[in-house]
């Protein structure tokens, strides 16, 4: 009886996946690539904005993973400082953090905003649904929970994380959670107070991981997907090296390991993830800087290849005041059993200040957003070795700092 039932389930699954595949073929196999930018300035220096930007908001290109062809970016929506983007799981909505309209930097900012946009599946244009305060300042990161009912934000300036409800029509509703971080770290300038830099749910949607650059800790909150609440007030955390500055965090594809990138030290700490207890335990502190490098790492983004075999992280290095570079994107092989990292290569990002990069959903290409040089460089990814090869594609976009993909219809 049991095998027969399993067989029936299997048959049903096959039919279902065939149906899904057919509906998928009505999409083009192409993607819209959205680029978030700073419209008010081009980069941060000493924690304050510097330079000028001519960007008008969020840009969109059409991208063919089969050929690597990317169309010229067009304005998808005019908006102030769309510094971070997140796509709803249903691909219908895009959420954007406006990192303070006045752009005066963490200690001087008064308010940040989050906007909801509906995505036009034909041309990729964005239609504004609504805009609400994030409940914090210098909001630098946002993500969506697995149910698509909550957007979560890290408010770097005011040391808090906030969760807002997403209504059925994709617009933003009431605040569901607010947590203030307290404490400080070793670095007298960037760690004189808490600075949450990212927040992401665990693969089972039961926890929210918050990287706090100011207190050198990665917090594990319980997340209640029924109410949007985070708990407890004093969440358990895993301590990182002093002065490291945890910035971004990723889970591996199977949800067994977590990887924390530290902005100042450039270390990637590999952590074993126990979803039953919601605990992270340190396995490895992987160095991304060469042993002979003297200077700062300013590491920024971290991502794992869809095949789960390789980890990428970007570095905006400096060797002293006004001695920039060399910037790199580091490639690491992931041990499938232990989760540990071994260095593959460090490549130039095709520009300066790679604050953000993204791997396309097919795993064929990596887009490097180079904030200071105002370009997005395209790299071909070798899925067997993880290695990056530069292509000739180079998109001119002022201060590109966030890159996301949405499947496009024909």
């Amino acid at each position, binding site marked *: 009886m049991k095998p027969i039932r399993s067989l029936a389930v299997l048959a049903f699954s096959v039919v279902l996946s065939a149906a899904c595949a057919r509906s998928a073929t009505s999409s083009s196999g192409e993607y819209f690539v959205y680029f978030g930018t700073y419209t008010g300035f081009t980069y941060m220096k000493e924690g304050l904005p510097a330079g000028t930007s001519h960007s008008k908001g969020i840009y969109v290109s059409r991208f063919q993973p089969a050929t690597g062809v990317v169309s010229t970016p067009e304005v998808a929506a005019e908006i102030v400082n769309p510094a971070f983007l997140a796509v709803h799981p249903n691909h219908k909505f895009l959420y954007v953090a406006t990192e303070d309209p006045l752009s005066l930097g963490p200690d*001087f900012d008064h*308010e940040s905003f989050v906007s909801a946009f509906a995505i036009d599946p034909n041309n990729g244009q964005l239609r504004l649904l609504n805009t609400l*305060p994030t409940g914090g300042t210098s909001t630098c990161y946002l993500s969506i929970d697995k149910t698509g009912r909550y957007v979560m934000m890290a408010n770097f300036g005011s040391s808090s994380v906030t969760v807002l409800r997403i209504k059925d029509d994709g617009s933003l509703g009431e*605040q569901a959670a607010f947590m203030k971080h307290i404490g400080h770290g070793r670095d007298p300038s960037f760690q004189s107070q808490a600075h949450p830099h990212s927040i992401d749910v665990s693969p089972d949607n039961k926890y929210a991981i918050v990287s706090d650059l100011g207190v050198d800790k990665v917090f594990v909150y319980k997340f209640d997907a029924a109410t949007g609440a985070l708990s407890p*007030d004093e969440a358990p955390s895993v301590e990182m090296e002093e002065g490291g500055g945890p910035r971004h965090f990723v889970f591996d594809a199977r949800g067994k390991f977590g990887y924390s990138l530290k902005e100042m030290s450039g270390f990637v700490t590999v952590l074993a993830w126990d979803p039953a207890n919601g605990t992270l335990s340190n396995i490895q502190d992987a160095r991304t800087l060469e042993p002979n490098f003297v200077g700062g790492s300013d590491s920024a983004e971290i991502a794992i290849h869809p095949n789960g075999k390789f980890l990428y992280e970007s570095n905006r290095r400096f060797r002293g005041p006004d001695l920039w570079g060399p910037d790199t994107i580091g490639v690491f092989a992931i041990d499938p059993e232990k989760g540990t990292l071994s260095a593959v290569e460090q490549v130039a990002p095709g520009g300066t200040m790679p604050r953000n990069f993204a791997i396309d959903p097919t795993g064929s290409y990596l887009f490097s957003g180079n904030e200071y040089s105002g370009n997005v460089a395209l790299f071909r990814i070798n899925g067997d070795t993880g290695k990056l090869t530069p292509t000739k594609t180079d998109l001119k976009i002022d201060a590109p700092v966030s890159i996301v993909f949405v499947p496009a219809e024909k």
Partner: protein
Amino acid sequence: MRRIRHAFFSVILIIFALATLTKPAARAQDNDYFMYVGTYTGFKYVHHSRPFGKGEAKSKGIYVSRFHAASGELTPPELAAEIINPSFLTISPDHKYLYAISEDPLSLGPPLDHSSYVSAFAIDHSTGKLRFLNRVPSSGTSTCFVSIDKTGKYVMMANFGSGSVSVVRVRDDGSLGELTSFIQDVGHSVDRGIQMEPHTHSILVSPDNKYAIVSDLGIDKVLIFNFDDKTGKLSPPDPHFATVYPGGGPRHFTFDPAGKFGYQLSEMSGIVDVFAWDPSQGTLTTVQRAHTTPHDFFGSSHSAEIEIHPNGKYLYESNRRTKSETERAPDSIGVFAIDSKAGTLTPVQESPTGGVMPRNFKIDPTGEYLLSGNELSNNVVIFKIDTRTGKLTNTGREIAVDTPVCIQFVPVQP
């Protein structure tokens, strides 16, 4: 002709007033109010901005008494709603809803707190009990103040710990909706203890609902935001402001009933700054810096609440004075006469409070009584107001409530 019409109206008014006074059955009801008392449930009181005596408060939430204004009597308090640390309350203009903050569930004090909340309640006008509607975060820590705009569509909060103010939409059913505005104050002032960072202590709209006045104890500023009651938005993020004497610590603010003057009470200095209010420009201009402490007093004023009598003639402010770390000075409620033309203050009386630590008091809507909430002695004391002189007399009547820190009145007849 004009004088005749005036006389005619006066006669009508007198007849109407007499009719009201002699209407036997309805009279008691008409003059009855629900008096709501907010409390701290998690600790006894706040000392040096930190909770003191943790776990000692027996309070369970918001309490309600019936206040019979004709006789000045209060019924024994009953629990109206269980809620954690409802340290400030506000009532909707239609008297249907009460909004209460929860000043941090853990009650660890400003630098150590993580989250505060605001809750909406529907008022049951037959019993005075409160029915919980919903709760949202206040988007700040150690939230110590909540008010509601004139339309009743927005509640506004001052988040003392994190130095911000937030505005939340009120839905048609009285429940709380989305955050419509969030402003983080920046800066510091001269006191190295409490003024190292911003500490917003109160926010309330101007009489025309076009501005929101924010008192920031940490930066010695009274900020004047434009308020848009179509969107609930405060602007600009860096507004113009009035200043108080450095180290003063602006805490609570009130407009006079005519909307011509603003009165800012500073917690540490005990000074009341009198400002001329220009509603067309949204500006406060200093008129007088009135001292509330006696000239021979040395110590800290710890002034708390400020209110103007409904007749517009008298101003009241409470003081929780200390002479040193360990020695408490006599607490007082200061009474001042307001010059009707100049808005300036002249001292009338320094009244005892009938208890210890008068963090809050309230004048009843008829203007006949003042009720003093004494946080540390756990009592609400009823004072009779002489409406011709402004002077207070202790009636000798009081009710026992644990850590009473906010008093609000609602007419029993909605």
